[in-house]
Each structure stands twice: as structure tokens, then as C-alpha cells.
């Protein structure tokens, strides 16, 4: 049912250099409440692989990674809500 999921917030980190896609995602997730969904739009290949492998450590849940076209990806993440 991911198609119908409406993200609480959208973060566009396309074009950003290493490690800003990861850092911006982490900083944004920290400010979100438990259960809120962050949509991340990104085009940096290393971060497409690195964000999913590090999310678990921060307690957040990766809902989906979807390739839009070429390097452009859309990621949905459920915030852990530590704040």
C-alpha cells in the first residue's frame, strides 16, 4: 500500500555532494515525530546505498526505495520519533 502513503514531509537533496544527502536526511528525521513519513528525493549513487544501511542504527524504518529514472531515486522513511 506504499503507493497511497502520503509523506508528512519531502526532502529534495538532488545535486548535493557527499555526505549532505545522508546528513540532511538524518537531521530532518530527528525533528520528526514517531510514525511520520519522510520522502527523500536523491540522485547520488553512494547515498542511495548508504542511507538504507545506516537508518537502522538511528532507529528509523526504511519503507521503500524506488528508482524514478537513471540515478534519481525516491525513498520513504518512517521516523523513529526520539523528540
Amino acid at each position: 500500500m506504499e503507493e497511497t502513503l502520503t509523506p508528512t514531509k519531502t526532502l529534495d537533496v538532488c545535486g548535493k555532494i557527499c555526505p549532505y544527502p545522508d546528513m540532511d536526511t538524518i537531521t530532518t528525521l530527528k525533528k520528526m515525530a514517531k510514525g511520520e513519513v519522510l520522502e527523500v528525493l536523491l540522485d547520488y549513487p553512494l547515498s542511495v546505498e548508504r542511507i538504507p544501511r545506516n537508518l537502522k542504527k538511528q532507529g528509523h524504518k526504511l519503507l521503500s526505495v524506488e528508482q524514478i529514472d537513471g540515478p534519481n531515486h525516491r525513498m520513504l522513511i518512517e521516523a523513529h520519533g526520539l523528540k
Partner: protein
Amino acid sequence: MTLVILSGLLVGILFGFALQRGRFCMNSAIRDSILLKDTTLLKSVGVAVLVSMAGFAIMAMANFIKMNPTPFFWGANLVGSFIFGIGMVLAGGCASGITYRVGEGMTGALSALIGLSAAATLTAMGFLKPIKDALQTSTKIMVGEANPTLANIFGLPPYATALAIAVIVAIIWFILARNNPDEGEVKSNASLSNRIFKKGWGWFATGIVIGLINMLAFYFSSLAGRSYPLAITSGWIGIVKVGMSVPEAKLGWDAWLVIGIIIGALIAALIAGEFKIRWPGWGMIGQTFVGGLLMGFGAVTSGGCNVTHILSGLPQLGIGSLVGAIAIVLGAWLTAYLIFVRPQSA
């Protein structure tokens, strides 16, 4: 001449392809270990260094190559490599990282590369040269006629020592890894060609391939009369010199290598559908340019960038490279702490 062009370019294309597929960047490797507590790329670097160490030793024993460790000038190694470490975090990539990312279409990497090439040339032959020369000559230490290595300072046989270190570290690593299995690695059921050309490579395969390419680099560059494995900064200086029409400047093996890296990464990115002209905004372009300037000055002062010191110098057990490698790590960690970690906890 033909051999220089062909082999340098070919090794460069292979290296660029592997860098892009493995997302192999020593800036990420070093920085992520404290920033994201992610050691995936660092393990890749470790494998590449161990393969190179054992490979160079065996090749030297068989007389295919002659070991050529970097000079040890502790002041220049410490100051230069520390500044290099600061620069690469600002630039968002190490010397090889920014080179291959140009082939992915990253304008931030291109701006860092222009900064690196400019500052490296100014330090090698321009107004920054006296600073570099003073630091190098005042702190240079040799063992007899040779540059110091972990082997010759203790009077040990060079090749056997390198081989022994590589094997012992690999065994210890294997035992530790068996006791702490990796949970992050996901087994892929994609076809072999998809795994090579479409998906990013795993850290272990990347490390092995880059170590093997480094061995090829040492062999072919020796045939071309250069006698050093992979390196980045000297190639860019060579290209700037030719561009400025410096008398008698020619594109050497290392210049063809860096041109090949961009071509190889471009090919890999195009096949994988990962090529895209990316624009990070003027602020970032400025930051990566300044980072590149620091990297260029640091690399020439220290006698090498991250590739020369870590990937190619450590396997030859050079003390200059060991000190350089430690200073790069410290500079990168300090900068990552100041610009990423501290603002987060504030």
C-alpha cells in the same frame, strides 16, 4: 610513447570503472567511520591495501617491479597531509574520489578538481614552492641512501616483511570477521552482468579489484619508466603544465591515468544509468573549490595524496606514507567533527 599512452589510459579506465562501481572514496571511508559509524568503505580500502601489499612484494621478488617508497620528511608529511585531510572533507571527496565523480557528472567534484590542480601546480613550481621546499628539506630523514620503510629501519628484508604483514593482518581480520558476522550485506540474486554493470559492488569485491588494478599500475608504469603504482595529483600537475605550454612538458603515464579514470567512470555511470549533470549550488561550488586548493597544496607538500600514501605507499611500507596516512585521517576526522558532528549535538 605509445606504450605510455596505451597502458596509462587503459589502467585509468579500469580504475575509474572500479571506483564508480564500488563507490570507492577514501574521504567517505575515513569520514564515515566517525560521522555515520559506517565502516563499509574503510574495509574496502583495507582489502585494497592488503592485496597491494602482498601483490607488490610478490612482484618485486619476481623482479617485475622495484619498490619505490615515498620520501620521509616528517614535518612536510604531517603538515601537508593534515591540510589534505581537511581539504578532502570540504571537497566532498579524496583525490581519486573527485576525479571519478567528474565522470558521473558532478560539477562540485569538477570545481574541487580545478582547485586541486591549480594549488598543486603552484606548490610544485609556483609561489607556494618555497614553503613546500622549506618543510621538506628541513625535516627529511633517510636510512643510508634509501627512504625509510618499516623494513629497513629494523634491518629486515623488505619483500618478506611486506608479505608477512599482509598475511598476518589478513588472518587476524578473517578471524575477527568470522566472530562478528556482517549484518549489513544483503545477498543479491541479480544476474552476474547486472551485478557488475548495474548494481554497486560490495566492499570486498571492490577492494580486491582495486588492489589488482594497483598491481597492474605498478607493472605498466615501471615499463613506462615511472616505477610507482596508482597516484592522482602528479597526473593533474602534468596536465596543467601541458595546458600552460610549459617548455618540454609532456603528458606522462600518470596524466593518461587520470584522464582514463574520468573516461572509465563515465562509461560505468552511463551503463548503470547513473550519469547526470548535478549542480550543488554556488555555495557548495565555492566550498569544494577551497577544499580542492587545500588538497593540492597538502598533497604536493606531503609528497602525495591519499592514493600515493594510503593505496600505494602503505603497501610499500614507507614511513613517509604511514605518517602521511595518519595525518590525512586526523585532518579529515577533525574537519568532519567540526562541520558535521558538532552542529548536530548543539
